C-alpha cells in the first residue's frame, strides 16, 4: 500500500504544483524519488508531529495541498490537538496520512499500535475518514481526497499487501460490493477486506454465499448502501481492526439504531484492551477473533440461525 501511496502522490504532484508532502522524519528511502523530482515540495519537519500539523495547516492557508505523513499512532494521537485547532477548525484541505495503522506494527509494541486513529479523526467535524483495503483503493482514493475542500484522513498499511480483483468502482463515501450473496453480509472495514474475501471463499465451498461489502470510507458513511444491505441480509458481520468505540461497527450502529430495518449486527474486532506481549498481527486477529476463520464461523452460525 505504501508503494501505491508514493506512486499516487507523485502522480498528483506532477499534475498539481500545489501538492506538497510533509513527513515527520519517516519513510526511509520511500520518498527519495519524490524528493529528487519535486525538491522543496518535499519537507521533512523532523520528529515533531505538532509542527507537522501546524506547518501543513499554514501551507494549506497559503493555497497549497499538503499531505502530512507519519506513523498512524503519532500522526493522530500525538498531533490531535494541533489537527483539531490548526486543521479541522479552519476546515483546511490537509490530507492527513497515518502509515501502519491498526495493528500493522503489532510486534513493535503498544506505542506503535493505533486502533484509535480512525476514531480520533472521526471526532473532528468535517473530517473525511478513509481506510483503503488494498493498493488499488489507495491509488483511487488519494486523488479524491486531494480534491476535497476540507480535511481528510487516510490510514495506509505497509508494503506488499495483495490487491483483490473487483469491477466495483472506488468512490469516496461509497461502499464497494465485492461479492454478491444472500442472507448474511460481511461488512469489511479497510484492511479487513482481504480477510472478508478469504472467509467468503471458504464458505462458498460449504455452499454458503455471504455478501461482501467493503467500506473504505468511514466518514461520511454510505447510508444508502447500509439501507440496501439491511434489506438484503438478516445478519451483518462487521469486521474491523479498530477500537470498538471508533470504527465501522460504531458508525453502522449509530446509523441503523433509528432505522425501521434492524438486521442482527455482529462485530468482530479488537476489544477495548491493550495488545500486550508483542503479538504478531495474525496471532492478535486469531486471539481476538477477527481473522478469516472467525469471520467464516460467525457467518456459518448466522446462516444456520435463520
Amino acid at each position, binding site marked *: 500500500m505504501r508503494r501505491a501511496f508514493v506512486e499516487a502522490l507523485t502522480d498528483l504532484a506532477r499534475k498539481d504544483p500545489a501538492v506538497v508532502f510533509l513527513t515527520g522524519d519517516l519513510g526511509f528511502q520511500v520518498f527519495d524519488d519524490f524528493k529528487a523530482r519535486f525538491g522543496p515540495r518535499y519537507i521533512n519537519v523532523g520528529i515533531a508531529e*505538532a509542527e507537522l500539523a501546524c*506547518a501543513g495547516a499554514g*501551507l494549506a*492557508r*497559503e493555497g497549497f495541498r499538503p499531505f502530512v505523513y507519519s506513523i498512524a499512532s503519532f500522526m493522530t494521537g500525538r498531533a490531535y490537538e*494541533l489537527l483539531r*485547532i490548526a486543521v479541522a477548525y479552519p476546515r483546511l484541505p490537509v490530507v492527513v496520512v497515518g502509515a501502519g495503522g491498526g495493528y500493522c506494527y503489532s510486534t513493535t509494541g503498544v506505542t506503535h499500535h493505533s486502533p484509535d486513529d480512525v476514531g480520533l479523526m472521526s471526532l473532528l467535524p468535517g473530517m473525511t475518514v478513509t481506510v483503503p483495503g488494498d493498493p488499488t483503493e489507495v491509488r483511487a482514493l488519494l486523488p479524491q481526497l486531494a480534491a476535497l475542500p476540507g480535511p481528510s484522513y487516510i490510514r495506509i498499511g505497509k508494503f506488499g499487501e495483495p490487491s483483490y480483483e473487483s469491477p466495483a468502482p472506488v468512490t469516496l463515501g461509497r461502499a464497494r460490493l465485492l461479492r454478491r450473496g444472500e442472507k448474511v453480509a460481511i461488512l469489511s472495514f479497510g484492511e479487513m477486506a482481504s480477510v472478508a474475501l478469504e472467509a467468503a471463499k471458504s464458505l462458498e465451498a460449504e455452499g454458503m454465499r455471504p455478501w461482501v461489502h467493503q467500506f473504505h470510507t468511514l466518514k461520511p458513511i454510505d447510508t444508502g448502501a447500509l439501507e440496501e444491505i439491511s434489506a438484503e441480509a438478516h445478519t451483518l458481520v462487521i469486521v474491523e481492526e479498530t477500537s470498538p468505540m471508533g470504527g465501522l461497527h460504531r458508525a453502522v450502529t449509530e446509523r441503523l439504531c433509528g432505522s425501521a430495518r434492524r438486521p442482527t449486527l455482529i462485530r468482530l474486532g479488537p476489544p477495548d484492551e491493550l495488545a500486550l506481549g508483542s503479538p504478531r498481527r495474525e496471532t492478535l486477529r486469531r486471539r481476538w477473533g477477527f481473522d478469516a476463520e472467525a469471520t467464516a464461523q460467525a457467518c456459518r452460525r448466522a446462516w444456520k440461525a435463520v
Partner: protein
Amino acid sequence: MDVDGLHEKARQIRATCVKMAHHAKEGHLSSALSPVDPLVALFYSWLRLYPKEPRHPERDRFILSKGHGCSALYAIMADLGFFPVELLRDYGREGSPLASHPCAHALPALEASSGSLGIGLGLATGMLYGLRLKGSAARAVVLLGDGECNEGSVWEAAMFAAAQRLEKLLAVVDYNGIQAVGRSDELMGGASLEEKFRAFGWAARTVDGSDIGAFLAALKPFPFEEGKPSAVIVRTRLGVSFMEGDVLWHYRVPSDDDLRRSLEELAARPLGWEA
C-alpha cells in the same frame, strides 16, 4: 506616525481594552493590555497591511498566537478600518464577530483563529514556507505570550523555522512575567527566552516594551541576521498603574470604579464609545 503619536495611540487602545472588558464583562484584561505597545508599533508603523483588502497576497501575515489577548487586536483592527469601530461594543457578545477568543469564521479578516496556545508559530512557519515557494516577499509576525512558551509545540516550530532558514519570520514574545496562576520565570526555570531562541538557531533580542521607539529600533535591520528567523523578547507592562504585576487581572472584570480610574490615568477615550 511619530513615536509620541504611537504612545498616545497605545493609551487609547488600552483605554478601549478596559472599556471592552468592562462592557462585555470579560476577563483576560491583563493579557490584552501587556502586548499593546508592541502591537501598536507593529500595526501603525511596521506591518504592510491592506485593511480594505484583508486577503491581499502581499500583506504581511500577523497571527495573535496568544488569542486570549484579542481585545487589543480588535481595537487596533477597528481603528485601522478592518471593520467599524462600533463593532467593539459587541465584543464577547453571543454571535458577535469579535469572539472572546479570535475566530476567523466569525471575523474573516483574521489571519487565523487562536485560543489554544502554541499553534501560531507553527502555522506561520507553514505559511512562510508556502510564501517562499510562491516567490512572495511577505513577512510573518507572530505575537506569543511568555507563558505560551511553556508549550512544546512552540519549540518544534522554532526548530523548523531555523532549519528552513525562514528569515522573514518575526516572533514577538510578550514578556509580561505573569501567567494564569504563576509567574513565568518560576515556571520556566528562570532561563532567558532570548537565550532559548538563540540556542534554537534564531537571532534574538530583548527590549523594553514601554519604549516604542526602542522597540522599533530593535527591529532594524530585519531580519536581525541573514538566513535566521528573528525573535524579540519584549519586557511589557500593563500600562495601568494599579493593575501592574498583579495576576488577578488575568481573570478580573473591571468594576465601574476600576474603569473610571483607568480612563483617568490613561487620559484617553475608548474607541467605539466616542458618541
